[in-house]
């Protein structure tokens, strides 16, 4: 019984909504390995870093999966953005002013349901950028949001 009590919430956290991102820039391929939860008492894992060259095209792929076996998540927004940040790894979210790319879709996620996105992008200004894919509209109904993120260093 104590084991069940301990394991149940961990299982629920690990298996509801999974988000992954992959960036292909030339021969470089960088993937996220964690779906983070927000709010969370834990410090987020360090973000993977991908280096891109200014004006050079790279390709971003992301996937959001409802890994729950029973629960349908209704009216979920999947929000993706690439926006300048002060430094790679910064823990505060940069303001979403003038993002390089921003997209969103809104749908229901049945058990096992998947949404995915893929897009090419080129960044003109050298600097650090945050690439993040996140859920919205789940906090009120589900208790937390989910996201995956990585840093882009544009040289």
């Amino acid at each position: 019984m104590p084991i069940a009590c301990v394991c149940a919430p961990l299982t629920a956290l690990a298996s509801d909504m999974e988000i992954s991102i992959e960036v292909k820039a030339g021969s470089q391929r960088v993937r996220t390995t964690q779906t983070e939860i927000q709010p969370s008492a834990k410090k987020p894992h360090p973000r993977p870093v991908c280096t891109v060259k200014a004006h050079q095209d790279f390709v971003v792929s992301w996937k959001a999966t409802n890994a729950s076996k029973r629960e349908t998540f209704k009216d979920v927004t999947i929000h993706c953005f690439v926006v300048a940040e002060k430094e790679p790894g910064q823990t505060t979210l940069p303001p979403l002013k003038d993002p390089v790319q921003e997209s969103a879709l809104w749908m229901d996620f049945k058990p096992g349901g998947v949404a995915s996105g893929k897009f090419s992008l080129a960044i003109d200004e050298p600097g650090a950028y945050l690439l993040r894919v996140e859920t919205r509209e789940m906090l009120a109904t589900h208790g937390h949001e989910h996201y995956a993120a990585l840093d882009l260093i544009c040289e």
Partner: protein
Amino acid sequence: MPGHRRVAATCLMTFAAVLLAATTDVRAEHARIDLRVISGPGKEASASSDTDPPAGGRITPPVLKVKVNQPLVLQFFFTNTDPHHDIEHVLVRYYVIRAEKLGRKPAATFADSTGRPNDAQPFLGPGVVTRGEFTMDFKPDCRVGTRLKFQIPAPGIYSVRLGSIGTQSDHEHFSAIDLVAE
């Protein structure tokens, strides 16, 4: 609009909030599209929904003159207005691609558009300036949108197009704008 979505739309002054706040009136057509290319303050071209077939649609795409390497913004909202059906695995794709002529033209075909994705095939082929796609389940009033910066690298005519694939209907919806880069 349910209460929690109204609250979210008020709080989030972002693109996602705009997507949520889009009007929800149901029309006879299956999709409502707002496609824009913005080249500067007050300088933009916009297009609404057309259907394919016929290949190339019925509406002549608006033309926007731009300059090579000028910062441009592509923005679209695609709303499924079919009030009756849930459809799984719909592809919504957009692209900016070099074109031979102005006016109505069939959708571009990409090497990786048929069959399973193949890493050997580049996502950006010759003549493709930028490109993107979403795979998602459609339900009545579901939406998808994007806003991104891009530039045209060389003089010529370019086609900007956004459309659906796989809606299990006898037609698909799309919207197109032509760019003339000097």
